[in-house]
C-alpha cells in the first residue's frame, strides 16, 4: 500500500502554548485513520495544518508523496470543524463553487449524484441558512465527495447532531469507507471510531501518545472492575502501586488497568495486604473508550 500522508515532526505553537508537538504519523492508502484525543489535544490544529489553513511552526507533511502543494487538496474532501458555505446561496450554487475550485468535470451530474447520496436532492434549491445542523453536515459531506477524491478528512463530523443525525452521518461515512477511500477522522465519539477505524492515533496536550492498528491499540493492559467499602483508601493503594492504574469511576466501582503479568488473585492480594478487602473484582471487557482512558490517563 502506498503512503497517502506522512508528517514529520509537525509542530504548532500559540504564544506560550504548544498545540502540536513533533507529530510524526503515516497514513496509508485505504486506511480509516482515527485521530483521538480530549478537547485541546491538538486534533483540529493538526488537521488544519494538513489542510493548509494553519501554518506549522516546524516540521513537514506530504500528501500523496507530493509535498505540500495546494493542488493536493483538490484530491481531498475535507470538513474541518463546521460546514462552511455561503448562507445566502442554495445547495447547488454552493456546490458549484466547490466544483469550480476543484476543477470538477460534469458539474451538474456530479452535484446531482452527491446530493442524492446525502438525501438533499429535494432541498437542492433551499438556501444553506435554512438547513438544520444535520442537513448542513450532510451538505458538507456531499461537498467532500463532489470531486470523487481519494482521501476524506473529517473533523468531528457528528458534532452537535442528535442520535438520528449521528446514525445517518455514520452510515454515510461507513458507505464511503467501503469504496476503499482513505479516511482521516477526528472524533470524540469513541464508539464511532471503534466501529469504523482500522488505525488510530491518540493525542493529548498536542503530543502523540499511541499510534497503530486498532488491534495494537486495544492490546494494552487488561482491565478490571473493583469494588470496596473504602473507595478513597482503595484509590490511594492504586496510586501507590506501579502496575495498577485508575481509569474511571463507574457508580460505586472503580475501573482499573493492570499489567498483564498479574493475575486477579495477585491483585486481590495487593489490596488485602493494605487492609482493603474487595467486595467485587471482575474482568472488564475492553473497548476503545476504556483503552483511550487508560492511554490518556
Amino acid at each position: 500500500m502506498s503512503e497517502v500522508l506522512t508528517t514529520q515532526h509537525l509542530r504548532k505553537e500559540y504564544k506560550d502554548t504548544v498545540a502540536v508537538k513533533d507529530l510524526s504519523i503515516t497514513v496509508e492508502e485505504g486506511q480509516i485513520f482515527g485521530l483521538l484525543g480530549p478537547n485541546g489535544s491538538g486534533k483540529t490544529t493538526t488537521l488544519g495544518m494538513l489542510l493548509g489553513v494553519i501554518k506549522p511552526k516546524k516540521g513537514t507533511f506530504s500528501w500523496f508523496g507530493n509535498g505540500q502543494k495546494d493542488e493536493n487538496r483538490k484530491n481531498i474532501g475535507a470538513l474541518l470543524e463546521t460546514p462552511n458555505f455561503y448562507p445566502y446561496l442554495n445547495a447547488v450554487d454552493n456546490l458549484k463553487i466547490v466544483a469550480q475550485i476543484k476543477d470538477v468535470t460534469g458539474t451538474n451530474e456530479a452535484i446531482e449524484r452527491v446530493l442524492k447520496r446525502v438525501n438533499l436532492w429535494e432541498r437542492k434549491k433551499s438556501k444553506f441558512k435554512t438547513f438544520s445542523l444535520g442537513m448542513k453536515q450532510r451538505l458538507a459531506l456531499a461537498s467532500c465527495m463532489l470531486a470523487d477524491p481519494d482521501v476524506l478528512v473529517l473533523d468531528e463530523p457528528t458534532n452537535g447532531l442528535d442520535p438520528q443525525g449521528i446514525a445517518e452521518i455514520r452510515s454515510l461515512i461507513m458507505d464511503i469507507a467501503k469504496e476503499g477511500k482513505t479516511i482521516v477522522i477526528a472524533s470524540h465519539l469513541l464508539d464511532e471510531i471503534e466501529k469504523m477505524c482500522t488505525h488510530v492515533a491518540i493525542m493529548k496536550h498536542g503530543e502523540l501518545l499511541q499510534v497503530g492498528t486498532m488491534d495494537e491499540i486495544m492490546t494494552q493492559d487488561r482491565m478490571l472492575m473493583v469494588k470496596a467499602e473504602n473507595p478513597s483508601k482503595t484509590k490511594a493503594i492504586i496510586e501507590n502501586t506501579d502496575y495498577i492504574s485508575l481509569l474511571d469511576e463507574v457508580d460505586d466501582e472503580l475501573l482499573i488497568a493492570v499489567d498483564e503479568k498479574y493475575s486477579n488473585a495477585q491483585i486481590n492480594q495487593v489490596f488485602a495486604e493494605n487492609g482493603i478487602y474487595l467486595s467485587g473484582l471482575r474482568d472488564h471487557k475492553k473497548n476503545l473508550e476504556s483503552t483511550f482512558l487508560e492511554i490518556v490517563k
Partner: protein
Amino acid sequence: MKKLIAIEFAKLKKLNALRVILLLYFVLSPLVVYALYSFFNTFMGPVIELSDGGAKWNPFGFPDVWGFVTWCSSWFNVLMGVIVIIVMSNEYNYKTLKQNVIDGMSLKQVIAGKFFVVFILSTIVTLYTMIVGLAYGLINSETADVWNGFVEIPVYYLQTLCYFSFAFFFATVVKRTALSIIFFIVSFIVEAIIGGMLSIAKLEVIYAFFPLNAFSKLTPFPILKEMVEAAQERNGNIPFMLDSWVNILVCLFYMALFFLVSLWVIKRRDL
C-alpha cells in the same frame, strides 16, 4: 484569472447587500448629480459666475461635466467601500475563505480573487460615472467636445481604487463586518477632526498628506481652485492644496500601502 473571476461572480451574484447598494448607487448617482446642479444653479449663481478664463462654469456641459460628475460620484465612494468591506468580511464570517483554501485554492488565488473584485467594482463604478457624465454632457453641450477634461475619469478611477483599498484594509484587519464598517466611517470623521486641528495650528501642509484628504482631493469641487484664489484675494489666507501630480503620487503610495499591508496580514495569520 478567468476561473477566479467566475468563482467570485458565483459567490456575489446572489448577495443581496451587493444588489441593494449597487441599485442605490445606479439610481441615486445621476439624481444626486442633477440635484446638485439644480442647487448650484438656483442658489449659488454668484459661485457659478466665478469663471474659468472668462467662460461661464457649466457643470452639465463639456468639459466641466467631467469634473462635476466625478466630484458628485465621489460622495458615493463611502457606500461602495461598504460593499468592499461586506464582500471581504463575509468570507471571514462564513469561514469560506478558509474553506476555499481547504478545497484546493492557494492563498495567492484567494487574495487575487478579492483584488479582482475590487478592480471590477471600481471599473463598474467608473464606467457608470462616465456614462452619466457623457449623457448629461451630450444633452447640455452645444459641441460634443467629449475628450476635453476627460482626464477626470481615470483620476476618478484611481480615487475609487484608493477608497476601496482603504476599505479592504479594514475588512482584512478587523474581519467583522459591522466593526469594519464603523471603523471605516469613523476614520473619515477622525481624519477631518485632526485636519481641522492642524489647520488651526497652521499645519495644513501636513494634513494635505493624510490619506483620506489626499483621496478626496483627486476629485475636488470643480471650481474649488478659483474659489480659493478668490478667498486669497480677499484676505490673503489660502488653504494648502498639493499639486495634482504630487497628490496622485501620495494616493498611489497609500493605495499600495493599504493593499500590501492587507496582503501581509492575510499571508501571515492562520485562516
